[in-house]
């Protein structure tokens, strides 16, 4: 992005009747007979603008200047894994063979697509240690919902109707929202100060006792359908007792769901299927480098154990006997299996975000098993480097080993009345995208920094220098940070006014 911009107006202000941005092809068939009932004829548009292609290109180019992207520099959002988006992935996703394929074409006509889906599934099985995968969910939250519905179907198939999902209060908001969408009641399990699930009851500073896993399972027993655990948790800390959590919930016949948003700390190093996880989701737009797109499209594959496989959304890609192929590569035949009587049905109309799956496959093939593990290790090294350089300048909330992300907070800056929000805005003025702020809520003033493996020492040193500069400025001139940002063409915005008097679309000014 560029830091100086003149304000780009709304496209509607540029509309001039008569301008066109698209020329239509010559109609080579007779014009349509108008068969529309009179009251269902399009009467026109109030906002759709009349502008030229030049207007549109200039508009979106200038608007883009107002965005900071991953190619601009470090984007250390914790738990978002903003790693480099390889350009090869964009190229392969645009291959006409893929882009021109119709989702309802016969299997025989989309063998390439089925091979893409099948291949990525096989990679994800090896990475997660779980034997079954679906690529149909379109985002992490979508994957969570799918996974929790698998759990529900599993219990129903056993004639049980369990009503509760357990989760720690450090969980990402999508977890309880998902449980509610799947018809479950959410019961919060106490967490330790480091956000890990507590087996014991925990007494808070206010004297209130929060129940731990042991008492909740003893009390609720067979009412518990499952527990949703993020691992590493939302503070970047590994749930070291996850094996015991699995055993404890399995003993009451419940299942362990793992939120795989932080998988970037584990690929090639640890596999959820190996430590008792029954079902989990992955975020291809985090761990597997597919671009964030300003809010999607993502993809949230779900991996699960054999017990849940029958319930997977349909159709399921299957591979049939290897056929004859050219050279040494065996040619298989692939098929979409719709005959899945116990399937939960569908979560997306077609086959999920196929274009994103292609990108993720390119990422996997490029890295290989060795590269994926190297990426994990480098992600962990990078986060630890930042921790080493900034601990002492910012308060390090947890002395426990850091994996791929580190949580600092603003408590050292409190004497100067400088807070996490000011630190974030100060980073903006120094050319960086801020880390995740104020999440998770159990850490006051959290700054969650995840550099990912893409950052070089040079980039990280620049970020570290900026953070140190902000700490210094907090002591010397806190008012400067309160005013930040001042260098990016937009000051702090009034979110209160936006919520009190919502203006959610442009409307034509009254004459």
């Amino acid at each position, binding site marked *: *992005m560029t830091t100086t911009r003149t304000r780009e107006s*709304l496209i*509607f202000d540029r509309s001039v009747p008569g301008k066109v941005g698209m020329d*239509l092809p010559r*109609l080579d068939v007779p014009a349509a007979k108008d068969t*529309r*009932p009179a009251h269902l*004829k*399009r*009467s026109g548009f109030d906002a*759709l603008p*009349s502008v030229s*292609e030049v207007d549109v290109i200039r508009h979106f180019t200038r*608007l883009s200047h*107002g965005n900071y992207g*991953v190619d601009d520099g470090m984007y250390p959002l914790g738990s978002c894994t*903003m*790693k480099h988006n390889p350009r*090869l992935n964009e190229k*392969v996703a645009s291959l006409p063979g893929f882009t021109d394929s*119709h*989702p309802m074409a*016969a299997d025989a006509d989309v063998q390439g*697509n089925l091979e893409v889906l099948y291949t990525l599934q096989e990679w994800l099985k090896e990475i997660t240690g779980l034997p079954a995968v679906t690529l149909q969910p379109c985002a992490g939250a979508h994957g969570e*919902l799918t996974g929790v519905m698998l759990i529900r179907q599993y219990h129903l198939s056993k004639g049980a109707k369990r009503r509760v999902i357990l989760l720690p209060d450090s969980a*990402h*908001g999508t977890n309880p929202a998902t449980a509610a*969408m799947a018809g479950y009641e*959410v019961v919060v399990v106490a967490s330790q100060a480091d956000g890990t699930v507590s087996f014991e009851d925990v007494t808070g500073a206010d004297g209130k006792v929060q129940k731990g896993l042991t008492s909740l399972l003893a009390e609720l027993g067979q009412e518990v359908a499952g527990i949703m655990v993020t691992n590493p948790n939302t503070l970047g800390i590994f749930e*070291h007792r996850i094996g015991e959590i699995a055993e404890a919930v399995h003993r009451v016949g419940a299942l362990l769901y793992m939120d795989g948003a932080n998988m970037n700390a584990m690929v*090639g*190093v640890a596999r959820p299927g190996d430590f008792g996880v029954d079902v989990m989701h992955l975020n291809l737009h985090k761990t597997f480098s597919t*671009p964030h*797109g300003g809010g*999607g*499209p993502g993809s949230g594959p779900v991996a699960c154990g054999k017990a849940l496989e029958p319930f997977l959304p349909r159709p399921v890609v299957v591979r049939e006997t290897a056929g004859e192929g050219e050279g040494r590569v065996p040619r298989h035949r692939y098929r979409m299996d719709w005959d899945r009587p116990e399937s939960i049905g*569908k*979560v*997306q109309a*077609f*086959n999920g975000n*196929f274009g994103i799956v292609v990108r993720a496959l390119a990422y996997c093939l*490029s890295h*290989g*098993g*060795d*590269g994926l593990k*190297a990426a994990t290790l480098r992600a*962990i090294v990078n986060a630890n*480097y930042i921790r*080493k350089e900034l601990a002492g300048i910012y308060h390090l909330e947890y002395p*426990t*080993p850091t994996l791929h992300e580190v949580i600092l907070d603003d408590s050292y800056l409190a004497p100067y009345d400088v807070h996490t929000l000011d630190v974030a805005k100060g980073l903006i003025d120094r050319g960086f995208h801020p880390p995740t702020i104020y999440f998770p809520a159990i850490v006051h003033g959290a700054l969650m920094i995840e550099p990912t493996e893409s950052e070089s020492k040079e980039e990280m040193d620049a970020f570290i220098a900026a953070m140190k500069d902000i700490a210094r400025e907090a002591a010397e001139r806190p008012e400067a940070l309160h005013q930040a940002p001042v260098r*990016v063409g*937009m*000051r702090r915005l*009034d979110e209160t006014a936006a919520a009190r008097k*919502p203006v*959610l*679309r442009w409307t034509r000014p009254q004459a």
Partner: protein
Amino acid sequence: MRYLPTAPSEDRALLDAIGVDQAEDLLQGIPARLRLGRELDLPGHQSEQEVLQLLSAMASRNTAFRARFLGAGAYDHFVPAAVDQMISRQEWFTAYTPYQPEISQGTLQHIFEYQTLMCDLTGQEVGNASLYDGGSACVEAALMAVRLQKKRKTILISAGLHPLYQECLCTNITPHEGLKLVQVGLKDGVTDLADLAAKLDGEVAAVLVGYPNFLGCVEDLQAISSAAHAAGALAVAVTQEALAFGWLEAPGKVGADMACGEAMAFGNKLNYGGPYLGFLAVRDAHKRELPGRVVGQTRDLDGQVGYVLTLTAREQHIRRDKATSNICSNEGLVALRANIFLQLAGPEGLQGLAAQNAAKAQYLQARLLELPDFTARFTAPFFNEFVTQYKGDVKALQAECAKAGILAGLDLTPYAADLKNCILWCATELNSREQVEALVEVLARVPSLVG
């Protein structure tokens, strides 16, 4: 490894700064007994050239049709070069959700414009930044209607809704105790108004109807909305081919309280079904129950107009188990494609394209009906999709077409007993007259079963 900034000197400098010998020393956060004690059993890393070759080979194993006449929720439309070019700017496609508004004004303003356009197309007052696809949009609309209607627990869905959307609804509504999905039958390809009246009771929260429906038929949305309102239910229009908004009146102007569906038609290729673009637009009075992200206009400290995510208290990161939805990442970049496309098209382009689609479909139908084995299955007006009854075996017909490089319409046989050997055809601006003639020529060669 081209994506990792590793180099021996740099690696050493980092590890020394941290104070460890090797990267593996930093894994103590993961108990040793839980670690994978071996390398991943996966192929090793490959060059760009090798990966491109592998994936190109896979892509080439898809049949490259020279003409497509299949719609059914995924429409083959022309994508202007400006769309592909513009979204390839890194500021658009690598950026995250606009949580830091000062450095995300591009994304935020684009979404505000996109929300405006979706409201314009649907005749509604508030739209969100996008949902995953048409199927999940139906689910969100249904759940929203139930939240709004509080005590009403039944959702009526026309049998004319896309069968795969119906399956999504079933999957997602079933987990909610007490909520019921009831199907309303069809008569001559459109919602049976008598059956609708019979099923509209005080328990119905909303009626979902296709506009146009899965069979391509244009439903009388106004009559259906009136019937719904008379029973205290909300009317929801489901549009799986959003280009129809260039031809049909905005659902909000003929009584629909909510408009949802699939907008992949705007600036997207088929992509084997995703990423697509679910949309949902509603009345202002209902905005607090709207799921998904919403962008609002405001001012900054200098009084400059700017944009922010707003009404966030509805969403999962604040409301948690009481959120309107769990949706977080949506289809942001696909909405950008649609926004750019719509702005290039403008009212003339959109209506012109829609008129061309209608013309092509009518021409295709006329030519098909000249063949002895084809008859029109329904009498309702249609946009760019319609159904013919075929006297022969559809599978054989499709195979003949495929041999000639043509992707024929959808075989409706599996979907309903009274649709045996019916075909759902689609024609868009991409189907030339030559393509139609080539299709007709192939079909004329298939042995006729009539006389």
